[in-house]
């Protein structure tokens, strides 16, 4: 208010500039010679109350009140203060220096000034209001503009098209909050045919978050093309991000590498929400720990594995879902999300979850944070591809009793009969299945009949895959041992120990996967141009 009051003072000063020395042509110079500095009066200064009730111009000299305001006025050389009152409120003052004629201000002068003040006060109030509103509008516009920029950056760095994976359904949902957060996701194919799946969240909101998100996403893509190991990718990106990221900002990120042909998933986590898989046995948490990216260089990220069978679906999400508040301010929370994943009757992983979220938050909800959902579902019967006659998808379980390895073998051979594989390859696979099943029965499940051995026979990505799964309790040899017959004959090795060696020699590939407390041996036969002893396999 002092700034405006000063303008008024200039006007009054100019009006009385009879004795001013400056040239009349230079009106502005003339007025500055009599200008006094602006005087700030604190709202709680007793002078405010005094002026409000003074009822007219006040002689500063004659003031008996002592306050910081009064002192400031005197120091500024103000002789006369005219309160500007509008609607009973003091909206400003007209501060006048000593009269240039060396005389005191007369009663007429004061009456004139009071009349002027009565006119000026409401005008001043209106002007202040208009200015305030204009400032607010400008700031609103700036925020809107920022939001637009942030949204634009964000959306330009999200994949426009999701990769098409035969045998898989990939879906993503992204809904930014009004004040855009730093959520992102990405899916891209790797040089070896696997697929990287990423979800992340940058702390903070708006343009800064969007910029960091764009940087993180580019670094993840670049590193992902060079290194396959998810833990190593996160390690690299963290080290690259650390020097450049603004203080107090960091990025949570989950990085998965999925082999679409087998359902084998490797993943590492930098402080992001854990994903959940919907499986035939309910929900399964894909656990992994690690520091968010951009906090400390030199971090290591533990790497885990999981296996997605046909029919399994995986949900990645951002905390915008779990931290959404309901009408009673309670949070949606992870348990509700897990329940949804576990219950196949609760609908599609994304749509069903959004329906539940909407029911929980109610219709009047203003979304607090970005919501991002990415799902990967391995479709049933995913073997129908690559020109195969037909896909195979057979699953069964057997009690862990010695002798059942024969049953496992026979059922697998029955299942693959439609493929019309060469007899020798079929026999080899039979031996491998039998050996793997025997290991599962005797070692993995420790011969406890009540624990089933699970067997899956699927064709996918040009491969025939037989999975034999146990609970992995016994000692497991993940490396193929190399038994030596001479040592055995000399009594230096036990006569036994041929199982894994045989399996390795009977199939094109053996993959051993320990994940989620289960031990899976995958026996793989290449279906196209398989090495069937040079003879025509199929």
């Amino acid at each position, binding site marked *: 208010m002092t700034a405006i009051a000063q303008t008024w003072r200039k006007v009054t000063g100019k009006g009385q500039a009879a004795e001013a020395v400056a040239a009349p042509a230079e009106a502005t110079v003339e007025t500055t010679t009599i200008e006094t500095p602006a005087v700030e009066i604190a709202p709680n200064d007793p002078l405010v109350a005094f002026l409000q009730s003074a009822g007219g111009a006040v002689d500063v000299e004659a003031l008996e009140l002592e306050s910081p305001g009064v002192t400031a006025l005197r120091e500024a050389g103000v002789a006369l203060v005219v309160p500007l009152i509008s609607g009973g409120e003091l909206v400003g003052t007209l501060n006048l220096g000593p009269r240039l004629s060396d005389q005191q201000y007369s009663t007429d002068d004061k009456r004139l000034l009071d009349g002027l003040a009565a006119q000026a006060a409401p005008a001043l109030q209106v002007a202040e209001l208009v200015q305030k509103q204009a400032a607010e509008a400008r700031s609103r516009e700036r925020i809107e503009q920022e939001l637009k920029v942030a949204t634009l950056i964000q959306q330009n760095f999200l994949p426009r098209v999701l990769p098409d994976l035969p045998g898989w359904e990939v879906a993503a949902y992204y809904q930014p909050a009004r004040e855009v957060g730093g959520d992102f996701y990405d899916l891209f194919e790797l040089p070896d045919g696997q697929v990287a799946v990423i979800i992340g969240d940058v702390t903070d909101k708006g343009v800064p978050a969007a910029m960091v998100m764009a940087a993180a996403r580019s670094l993840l893509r670049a590193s992902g093309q060079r290194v396959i190991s998810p833990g190593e990718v996160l390690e690299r990106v963290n080290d690259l991000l650390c020097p450049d990221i603004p203080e107090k900002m960091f990025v949570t990120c989950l990085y998965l590498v999925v082999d679409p042909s087998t359902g084998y998933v490797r993943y590492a986590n930098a402080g992001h929400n854990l994903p959940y898989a919907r499986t035939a046995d309910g929900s399964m948490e894909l656990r992994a720990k690690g520091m968010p990216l951009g906090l400390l260089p030199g971090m290591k990220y533990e790497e885990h594995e999981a296996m997605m069978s046909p029919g399994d679906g995986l949900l990645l999400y951002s905390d915008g879902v779990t931290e959404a508040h309901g009408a009673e301010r309670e949070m949606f929370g992870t348990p509700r999300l897990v329940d949804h994943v576990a219950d196949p009757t609760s609908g599609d992983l994304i749509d069903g979850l959004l329906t539940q979220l909407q029911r929980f938050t109610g219709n009047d909800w203003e979304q607090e944070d970005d919501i991002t959902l990415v799902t990967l579902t391995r479709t049933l019967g995913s073997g129908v591809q690559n020109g195969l006659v037909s896909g195979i998808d057979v699953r069964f379980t057997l009690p862990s009793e*010695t*002798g059942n*390895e*024969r049953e496992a073998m*026979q059922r697998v051979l029955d299942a693959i009969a439609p493929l019309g594989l060469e007899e*020798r390859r079929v*026999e*080899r696979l039979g*031996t491998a299945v*039998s*050996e793997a099943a*025997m290991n599962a029965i005797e070692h993995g499940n420790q011969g406890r009949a009540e624990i089933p051995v699970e067997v899956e026979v699927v064709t996918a990505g040009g491969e025939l895959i037989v999975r034999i799964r146990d609970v992995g309790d016994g000692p497991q040899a993940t490396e193929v041992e190399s*038994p030596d*017959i001479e040592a*055995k*004959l000399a*009594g230096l090795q*036990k*006569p*036994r*120990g*041929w*199982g894994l*060696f*045989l399996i390795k*020699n009977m199939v094109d590939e053996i993959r051993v996967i320990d994940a989620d407390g289960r031990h899976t041996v995958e026996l793989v036969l290449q279906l196209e141009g398989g090495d069937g002893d040079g003879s025509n396999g199929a």
Partner: protein
Amino acid sequence: MAAMALEAHVHTEDDGPVLELVGDVDGRAEEALGAAYTEAGEASAVMLDFQGVTYMNSTGIALIVGLLARARTNGQTLSVRGLTPHYREIFEITRLSDFMTIVDEEEGST
């Protein structure tokens, strides 16, 4: 391909005793195999006839390794005949074939 506990019959041919194996060479075959081998006695050459073998697994391989060890101790040679191509391959990759003679069908059957 029903599971069938091994039966081992011993008879003697011109070249010596023959252990005729019928059924599955797996963990349950230990006793029958051991008994038949003992029955074959101390002849310098013993023949295992796999013609009637329906199945063999790694435990069965271990049993053959055991027989081979016994034969070496006794200074006997051990031969095998009647192997299907699949089991012949297994004898080869385990290198059992380096320590026992594999007799082909044509020349083996008398």
